[in-house]
């Protein structure tokens, strides 16, 4: 298995671990109960998205550094220092699929508002769409690195 294939697998696994662990951390902090101010609920969802973004960026960087160290130690190979035409083509395909999934999720989220669903449903759909689109991008990369373009 090549560096890019291993990296895609690590990316999928780390995305799932980061998202699940963050959700488990944030779930008990939801401002539920009677008489909760709407501003508190918005504050919760806003901070959920913002901190998830920051947390996942930092975690991805740390996991990437650890992966590169482990890769060098186990294979005695250096990771590619640049992206060539195949990498760029696969990146574009991954971005296209990822974007498509997010847009579908966004439309579903808006649809939930049209059908008078509670506000948290819209946020959950939107955040889930972000997570699924991230995983879709990594899975697309893995697929194309293994099966070709």
């Amino acid at each position, binding site marked *: 298995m*090549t*560096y*890019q294939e291993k990296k895609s697998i690590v990316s999928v696994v780390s995305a799932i671990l980061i998202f699940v662990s963050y959700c488990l951390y944030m779930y008990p902090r939801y401002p539920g109960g009677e008489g909760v101010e709407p501003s508190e609920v918005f504050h919760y969802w806003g901070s959920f998205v913002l901190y998830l973004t920051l947390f996942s960026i930092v975690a991805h960087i740390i996991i990437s550094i650890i992966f590169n160290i482990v890769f060098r130690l186990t294979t005695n190979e250096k990771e*590619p220092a*640049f992206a*060539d*035409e*195949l*990498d760029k083509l696969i990146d574009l395909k991954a971005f296209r699929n990822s974007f498509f999934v997010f847009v579908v999720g966004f439309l579903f989220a808006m649809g939930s508002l049209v059908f008078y669903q509670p506000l948290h449903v819209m946020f959950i759909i939107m955040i889930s769409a972000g997570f699924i689109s991230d995983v879709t991008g990594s899975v697309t990369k893995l697929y194309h*690195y293994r*099966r*070709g*373009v």
Partner: protein
Amino acid sequence: MGKNLVGNHIRKLRFNHDEMTQQQLADKVGVTRQTIVALEKGNYSPSLELAFRIAHAFNLPLEEVFFYGDQTKE
């Protein structure tokens, strides 16, 4: 994924050029080893520019490195 119709003799040519490794060829033409692997497996059709760079690396004309259609039984 549809099978690529552009084939190549890269593996054979590497062998004939002092058993050049995939990494050496990759360094010579400016791509990663993964791309050479994909080319040899027939999983990727290179850009025209890369095809020319590979042909130059072997000092051969393009048509002696790449072919269109099924010539794998040659």
